């Protein structure tokens, strides 16, 4: 059992939890992920490591409630325990030799982009961060990003905070201002990563994206997380989750991630009914 030592509700359906897992905390590096199960018969949910405290032995993840599994996770509070937690899985984000970088986070993806930006900042790279959100209510981590970046641009789709527009608009602006990046690292919704990659391809800037296909075991056993990268099948859990954004077949992942849409909708509705019943009785 893995005790939750802290839980903070963030904006827009997202929460941050820290969990006691000393072995994982000791090893965790930016870009790696864990898989947890809230209860005995729960789904295995992959979540990227947002932060770790090696002394306290805790790892922190940020999750967004999107379906039945994350909804169930969200019923646990500080002091409760997760039934299972395994990690750190996947390979760490490669940061060696990057002198000037633009790190782009979209929505909850910002929680994952943050440790990457911090690592680059700490190794002395010039770090520019673009953080995109739907609207003012969803903005988070702004203070933290400020501390680990030389330039920070916050974007909202509706302009209710920061600048109005998409992260690609901001990136195009920075490039137009004459910034030359060794690399762009984009983490967020698949569609966002796809359009960032299309843009950077035009400018010939190396781009790394963090992929989140549907996973089961996360150890290279099931092959469910396979993607086509550069025309070849790769497994996101052992070969990734980071890949060259110019090589990834995004449309395929976007399509594959919708496999269980109907099932999920049903589950969600059933769960919601259960929740409603609980509330009523």
């Amino acid at each position, binding site marked *: 059992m893995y005790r939750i030592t802290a839980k903070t509700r963030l904006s827009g359906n997202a929460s941050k939890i820290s969990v006691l897992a000393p072995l994982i905390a000791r090893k965790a590096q930016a870009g790696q992920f864990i898989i947890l199960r809230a209860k005995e018969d*729960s789904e*295995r949910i992959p979540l990227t490591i947002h932060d770790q405290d090696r002394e306290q032995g805790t790892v922190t993840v940020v999750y967004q409630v999107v379906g039945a599994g994350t909804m169930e996770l969200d019923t646990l509070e500080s002091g409760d325990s997760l039934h299972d937690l395994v*990690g750190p899985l996947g390979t760490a984000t490669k940061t060696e030799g990057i002198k000037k970088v633009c790190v782009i986070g979209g929505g909850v993806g910002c929680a994952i982009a943050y440790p990457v930006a911090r690592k680059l900042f700490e190794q002395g790279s010039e770090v520019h961060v673009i953080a995109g959100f739907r609207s003012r209510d969803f903005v988070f981590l702004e203070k933290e990003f400020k501390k680990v970046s030389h330039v920070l641009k916050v974007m909202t789709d509706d302009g209710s905070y920061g600048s109005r527009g998409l992260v690609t608009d901001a990136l195009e602006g920075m490039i137009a201002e004459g910034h030359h990046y060794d690399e762009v690292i984009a983490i967020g919704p698949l569609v966002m990563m796809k359009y960032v990659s299309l843009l950077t391809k035009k400018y010939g800037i190396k781009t790394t994206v963090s992929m989140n296909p549907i996973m089961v*075991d996360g150890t290279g*056993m099931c092959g469910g997380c396979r993607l086509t990268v550069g025309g070849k099948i790769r497994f996101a859990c052992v070969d990734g989750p980071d890949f060259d954004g110019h090589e990834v*077949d995004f449309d395929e992942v976007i399509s594959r991630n919708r496999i269980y849409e109907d099932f999920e909708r049903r589950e969600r509705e059933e769960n919601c009914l259960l929740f409603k019943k609980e509330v009523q009785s």
Partner: protein
Amino acid sequence: MSRNMSPSKVAMPAQDPQERSLNFREVALGYTREMAMEEAARCLECKHRPCVNGCPVKIDIPGFIREIARGNMEEAFLILNRDSALPAVCGRVCPQETQCEQTCVRGIKGESVSIGRLERYAADWYRENACTLPPRPEPNGHRAAVVGAGPGGLTAAGELARMGYAVTVFEALHLPGGVLTYGIPEFRLPKDIVMAEVDALRRLGVEIQLNTVIGKTLSIDELLEYGYEGIFIASGAGLPRFMGIPGETLKGVYSANEYLTRINLMKAYEKDSLTPVMRGRHVAVVGGGNVAMDAARCARRLGAEEVSIVYRRGIKELPARLEEVHHAQEEGITFRMLTNPVQVLGDANGWVRGLECVRMTLGEPDASGRRRPIEEPGSNYDLPADVVVIAIGTSSNPLIRLTTPGLETDQWGCIKTKGPGGETSREKVFAGGDVVTGSATVILAMGAGKDAARAMDRMIRGREMAVQHG
């Protein structure tokens, strides 16, 4: 006791094919006491014991069968248990027809003695009547680690614990059992049996640390630093292989590992499971081994109207156990032999809609001694399918290989061993089971676990002596 000279085995009661293809309960129901004693009386107690040579772990077959014939079920179990840690499992899943039963003299004129069914009977009897618990061994003051809680790892752990070692098993998944838990379905190997075997190991003092991926959470070298004096790696076969034909990433195409893991480990067949699995109407399973049979029979139980096994050689060449092929046939699975997929067909929304197949003929024998399948030009046709399961084997998992300096592997990435005890190129590190041989069998993995445990014990005691006398 009179000998039973009937040329055929006492039949195994089984669930009716119609009924069982709608549930996940065990298909073969097991002998009664009377049936077991009747079948046991068919054994001639041959002096030269050819059956024993056919068994990879050399179980005293006439010995345990004699006890069943006399009605001494506990004795029978104890004889089995001397050489096999998991007789309830092996009695169910061993490919007996190519092992112990193949060399049985009764098989020359008629059917062999049903060694597997008798083994299962004795083991089930013991579990259900849980007699004397083996005494908890005296600790010998040494520590050993095992990587992977599949049959290989569990056997080594049990063997070491019985010798007095403090054993920790590190398992990546949230449940122990390896393929026995996530691969082989409930209707062939009930999970309660696997868990009962694991509990018995825990009672021996074996500690099983779940959710721990060696190569990620901890490395082999860290285990050595922690003071484990020997390590046995039994991490299994690894990554699923795909065919490398167009369309394999379409929605509805599964590797057998993913399909079976969703169903067995995550219990997707149960009504209230949170884990989804696609229930197709027309399911095509590519491959001809046990894995393919299991996937096909699961598909049927999930409600598919038409399930096909697509295999490029002939029915005689199917590598699956005979019993599984028969059971699959009884359940109405269609065997499309001499058929090879050349492309997975998809619709406009990325869903699979079928397999384009080509017919094959058998040519000259190839390196494996089997006749090589050759494409018949122009014989292509489309087989409609809304779920496709690919069960054509695995290649090695890189996690341990890449994080253990000096651990030699072969060209396929399997760990190389040097001696019969599974010694690797790294001191104190042993390996066995599928991670060494590639996909093989439960009993071979168990045999490797046992040999490695003994070799590890010799090594550790050898060191101890060297320290004492040096």
